[in-house]
């Protein structure tokens, strides 16, 4: 600083006390970029001291001006001459960002105001090195895709900024107030936000990116000691599916410590938010997003998410939709490069499903309708508890998240169903390992009676326990009257009455076999026996506290099989019942919009 210009001392020396500019203006036009930049700086008040001849420096400089679009910028400090250098204090207040749009390497339209208080030192302009320390903030930041706001923040403030260009950019704290983001998948399946992310190519006409050039940002180590966000929000919209999915995330708070692009410890994340107005989301763990391969190690928890909000995905992926249900889940996910390892423990309460179309993916992939599967998975509190892992390599071309999820769901569902079903029967699988049928052991009776056999009593006990444990399961009961039942019924017919009809003798004696075979069974005997057996089962269930509405009875079946029994079959659960008012109005022909259509 202050070094004299080389060469012999001039004979004449001129000292200028101060060069002053009042209310000056500069019009900057840059046609090398598209669109052309037009920056008009006005209200320039400047003073430069220490000038003269020969020009030695440093020059004492102070300036204030209105930057393009409004605001105020002040610069004060010293400017060296040999080598060209600067040591300045720069303050900016409400400097409009919009006029600099042509220089931004993105199609997004950025508006807002910049504020800064920085001490800037440029030791040598020739070396293209600089340091800057202080505070920078943006207010009313609004990033738009055309007309639409896609990113917004009331304020973003970076304090303890310490830049040593080009080696490092360090920020002590980056505080975001009311940040908001639109995360959208459009109707073509694209992510418009990604298209707005700055590319590495330059915007100047005919210029190529110079990524390998020394001193470019690619070599710059970026560290932000702490990022905080208060009262954040996000609107998530998926228009690639029909009906569209949309959910708002609000009241988000985030703290991210140790975000850095250098090798070392990953950043620590702690975040809470509200999803869909009711569900609480917690997310914590570590992540390395700026330093090479992606590394995540996150624990997340969501509580009481309204399942009907996800109906768009249920309808499209499963063919069912939820009329009610609350999902709570704990997720542990690790991503190391392309290796994904995740495990989730899910609890779904009060789930009510209705079919939303003919394509039941659960039926085709697992073997049972989703409604039946969920009814077999609900515990006595009406909750479904699932725990399933998802593992794979994200870069593996065979890795298909949808298929992976289905495989996990299938395994979990089959495991969850097989155990309780083993109390009452067995799950039968097809050759391709889908559930073919749930075989329920029949309830045996003594031939010709409604008296349970000892085995039948044991099965009723197990069935009661099963129904008690799985309160959504319903069953059909079909009484079967066998050939042995018929024989027993005939044997109880008094011989006299048979004799009258057959004109046989030997009153009161046992019927001979030939006569027994010829003896007709009274028409009411078979249905009566079926009814009594149903009644016996119904009574046993009722005494055990099982709601009779969960049992559907069917007509007696007469078979030649040797066993007297009542068959049981697990029923597909009924959908939620429509309101009685709707039923009445519909009965009277009042046209109502059918929401299930």
């Amino acid at each position, binding site marked *: 600083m202050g070094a004299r210009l080389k060469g012999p001392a001039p004979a004449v020396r001129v000292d200028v006390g101060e060069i002053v500019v009042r209310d000056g203006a500069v019009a900057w036009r840059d046609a090398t970029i598209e669109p052309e930049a037009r920056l008009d700086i006005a209200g320039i008040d400047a003073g430069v001291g220490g000038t003269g001849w020969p020009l030695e420096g440093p020059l004492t400089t102070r300036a204030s001006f209105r930057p393009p679009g409004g605001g105020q910028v002040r610069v004060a400090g010293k400017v060296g001459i040999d080598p060209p250098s600067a040591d300045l204090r720069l303050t900016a207040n409400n400097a409009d960002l919009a006029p600099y749009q042509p220089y931004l390497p993105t199609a997004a339209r950025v508006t807002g105001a910049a504020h800064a208080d920085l001490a800037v030192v440029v030791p040598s302009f020739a070396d293209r090195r600089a340091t800057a320390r202080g505070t920078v903030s943006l207010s009313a930041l609004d990033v738009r895709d055309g007309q639409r706001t896609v990113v917004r923040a009331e304020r973003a403030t970076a304090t303890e900024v310490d830049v040593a260009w080009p080696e490092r950019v360090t920020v002590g704290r980056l505080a975001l107030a009311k940040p*908001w983001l639109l995360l959208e998948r459009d109707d073509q399946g694209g992510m418009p936000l990604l298209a707005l992310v700055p590319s590495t190519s330059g915007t100047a006409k005919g210029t190529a990116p110079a990524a390998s050039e020394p001193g470019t940002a690619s070599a710059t180590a970026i560290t932000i000691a702490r990022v905080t966000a208060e009262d954040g929000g996000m609107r998530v919209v998926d228009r690639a599916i029909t009906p*569209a999915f949309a959910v708002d995330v609000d009241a988000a708070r985030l703290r991210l410590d140790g975000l850095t692009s250098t090798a070392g410890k990953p950043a620590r994340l702690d975040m809470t938010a509200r999803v869909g107005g009711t569900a609480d989301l917690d997310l914590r763990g570590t992540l390395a997003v700026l330093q090479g391969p992606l590394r995540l190690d996150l624990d997340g928890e969501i509580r009481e998410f309204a399942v*009907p909000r996800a109906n768009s995905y249920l309808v499209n992926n499963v063919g069912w939709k939820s009329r009610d249900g609350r999902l709570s889940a704990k997720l542990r996910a690790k991503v190391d490069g392309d290796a994904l390892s995740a495990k989730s423990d899910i609890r779904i309460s009060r789930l009510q499903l209705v079919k939303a179309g003919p394509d039941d993916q659960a039926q085709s992939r697992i073997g049972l309708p989703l409604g039946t599967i969920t009814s077999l998975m609900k515990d006595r509190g009406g909750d479904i508890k699932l725990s399933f892992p998802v593992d794979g390599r994200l870069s593996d071309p065979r890795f298909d998240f949808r298929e992976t999820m289905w495989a996990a769901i299938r395994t979990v569902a089959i495991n969850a169903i097989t155990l309780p079903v083993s109390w009452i029967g067995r799950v039968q699988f097809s050759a391709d390992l889908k559930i073919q049928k749930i075989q329920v052991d029949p309830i045996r009776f003594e031939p010709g009676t409604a008296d349970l056999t000892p085995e039948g009593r044991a099965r009723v006990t197990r069935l009661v326990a099963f129904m008690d444990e799985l309160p959504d399961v319903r069953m059909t009961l079909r009484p079967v009257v066998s050939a042995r039942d018929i024989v027993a019924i005939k044997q109880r017919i008094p011989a006299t009455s048979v004799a009258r009809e057959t004109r046989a003798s030997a009153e009161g004696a046992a019927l001979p076999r030939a006569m027994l075979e010829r003896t007709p069974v009274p028409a009411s005997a078979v249905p009566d026996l079926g009814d009594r057996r149903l009644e016996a089962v119904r009574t046993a269930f009722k005494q055990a506290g099982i709601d009779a509405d969960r049992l559907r009875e069917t007509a007696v079946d007469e078979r030649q099989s040797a066993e007297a029994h009542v068959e049981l079959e697990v029923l597909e659960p009924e959908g939620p019942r429509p309101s009685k008012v709707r039923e009445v109005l519909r009965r009277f022909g009042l046209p109502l919009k059918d929401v299930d259509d």
Partner: protein
Amino acid sequence: MIDRGRRVIVVTCIALALGACATFDPLEDTRIEAEVKARLVAEKSANLTRVGVVSRDGTVRLNGAVASPEQRARAETLAGGAPGVRRVVNGLEVTTSR
């Protein structure tokens, strides 16, 4: 004919007695909110991505701020066009700061 007349009277009485209160499926509100938000977000010629949407019994309430009366009206039109919407209550404020 008499049956038909009785039917009409009964239906009218029930409808009057119960009003429209109990016939709307709450599940519909969830779907409507998503549908309206998706429509607002999809609108390229206006800035409606941050409009608040709440549906109750098919009545959609819009809240927040937009930049012009035209955008306010556009939001109402888009919301009203979503299937299942019975009425739109437009609570949007027009502010020039947006």
